[in-house]
């Protein structure tokens, strides 16, 4: 498969995942905007990068993905279902108590490594997993998805310091940089910029990408994999609610109990109009920083 065919295969998966996410939002609501913001990253990770599959879900050397911004879990569930970890029919039972599918990750579902929901937790848990892998010489890589609003939590900055001190080069943090907290733009409430410089100053390798463009995402993770002697962070520039223009970038698009047929129709229209990336290209760069 050439690069264009590969990208379009990923785009088909992402479209299917978006449909599943929207369907979940119609069954009692979910954090739709956050899920649509990071779903392309998850499609890329589970299709191209993570050495994990239903057959290897207990393998001690499998790669680990931790969703620290737990409220974006519909994206994880849609991708895990698509990858065959559990039947997609399970998602149709969203919020039915016996299904175990609720608003935050449930580790009793296949492929979900750990619960999350309280923000600021899984960077340090990922550090423990990465440290274990290094101690036993495992090829395991650990990826932790953080929200940009989640970066308000002090435990994240504590973890950034300690991960660099322990030179956890098998750890990759991913920031879903959609620039919106729950209710307010990040730069209005608690400004993060210059974020790449901050992370570089903590002695992390930093690379930015367009979090909705698979070739940009691919280049960013390739750059992260080239880091040695320190952890790396991929700042993925994203749009909350991506794929639904009526929701994109809206501060009130946090939790959505949607009318599924209307939203699905909107998704199809938006996809036809802009089959490739539709957001303004934000560019890529790698920040240096002290070694």
């Amino acid at each position, binding site marked *: 498969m050439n690069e264009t065919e590969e990208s379009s295969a990923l785009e088909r998966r992402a479209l299917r995942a978006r449909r599943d996410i929207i369907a979940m939002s119609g069954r009692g609501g979910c954090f739709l905007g956050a899920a649509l913001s990071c779903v392309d990253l998850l499609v890329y990770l589970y299709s191209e990068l993570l050495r994990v599959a239903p057959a290897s879900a207990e393998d001690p050397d499998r790669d680990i993905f931790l969703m620290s911004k737990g409220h974006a879990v519909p994206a994880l569930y849609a991708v895990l279902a698509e990858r065959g970890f559990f039947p997609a029919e399970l998602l149709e039972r969203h919020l039915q108590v016996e299904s175990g599918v609720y608003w935050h990750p449930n*580790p009793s579902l296949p492929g979900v490594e750990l619960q999350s929901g309280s923000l600021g937790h899984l960077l340090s848990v990922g550090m*423990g997993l990465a440290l274990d892998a290094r101690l036993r010489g495992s090829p395991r890589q650990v990826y932790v998805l953080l929200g940009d609003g989640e970066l308000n939590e002090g435990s994240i900055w504590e973890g950034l310091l300690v991960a660099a001190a322990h030179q956890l080069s098998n750890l990759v943090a991913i920031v879903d940089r959609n620039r919106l907290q729950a209710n307010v733009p990040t730069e209005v409430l608690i400004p993060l910029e210059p974020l790449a410089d901050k992370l570089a100053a903590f002695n992390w390798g930093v690379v930015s990408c367009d979090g909705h463009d698979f070739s940009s995402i691919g280049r960013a993770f390739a750059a992260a994999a080239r880091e040695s002697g320190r952890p790396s962070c991929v700042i993925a520039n994203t749009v909350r609610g991506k794929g639904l223009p009526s929701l994109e970038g809206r501060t009130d698009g946090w939790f959505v109990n949607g009318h599924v047929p209307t939203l699905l129709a909107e998704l199809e229209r938006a996809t036809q109009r802009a089959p490739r990336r539709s957001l303004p290209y934000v560019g890529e760069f790698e920040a240096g920083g002290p070694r």
Partner: protein
Amino acid sequence: MSYEETLHRIALEDPRVLVLTAENRAPVRGLPSRLGARFIDVGIAEQTLVGMAAGLALAGRVPVVHALAPFLTMRAFEFIRTDVGIGGLPVKLIGFIPGVLSDGNGPTHQSLEDIGLMRGIPGMQVFCPADADELTQALPALVAADGPCYVRYTTLARERDYQEPVLPGRAEVCARGQDVTLLAFGALLPCAEQARAKLEAQGLSVGLLNLRWLAPLDEAAIARVALESRALVSIEDHFTSSGLYPAVTEILHRRRIPTRVIPIGFERWFAAGRYQDVLEHAGLSGPRLAARVLAALEQKGS
């Protein structure tokens, strides 16, 4: 054998065991050189300490985690409750200078809430050894257990011979008595023993239970002494609002045992100073305890 020696021996026997600290090295000063990469110091970062320990435990390790008791159990509480507690991961939490052992540090360092907080996490064992000997006797089983535990660390020297071996979840019956039974644990056990001798000298029949585990509490032993004695005294270097006292009254209430329980413990943070002076000032030395128990027994109707 010291705590450090015991932990070192456990780590040599069990390759899953790792020793972590948030720069609280006093209990494990010799281990960095002896354990190499299996000794991990995260610096003064208790939340990261516990989160990393949870990640290590997820990967099949058994992390033994050291920090000052108040910072471990309170600053990192939600990490313990969520990352360790929900999955019941085998993270072993060792809290330094708990309760009165913080002596001269003042209220910031007084861990008078830790037992209530840790008991509130389903599946968490809470072990409060009276001396270093009880601590090292229990340590292998605590580390080998499947779930998490919290230990109130102590270096106090052993002052007596045991009547009963140190077994998980089991209290030690030090003495039996019909008039009153003292329920004590940890650093206050020697004070309770002194108080018992003074009260016996005054003609009372006084029992003493060394509880050792605050979770699970030895319910059967507590119920038994409550039926044998006219009154119980709960003695704790912890807030009485969330520590031993409500735990004991709950047991008696549930079992419909009407025996009176006299609470002795803290309602506020205590005056800091030299250890013996702290005990005296707080009314927890042997003679002060004896006087408080006598005064309470003389009060009618409460």
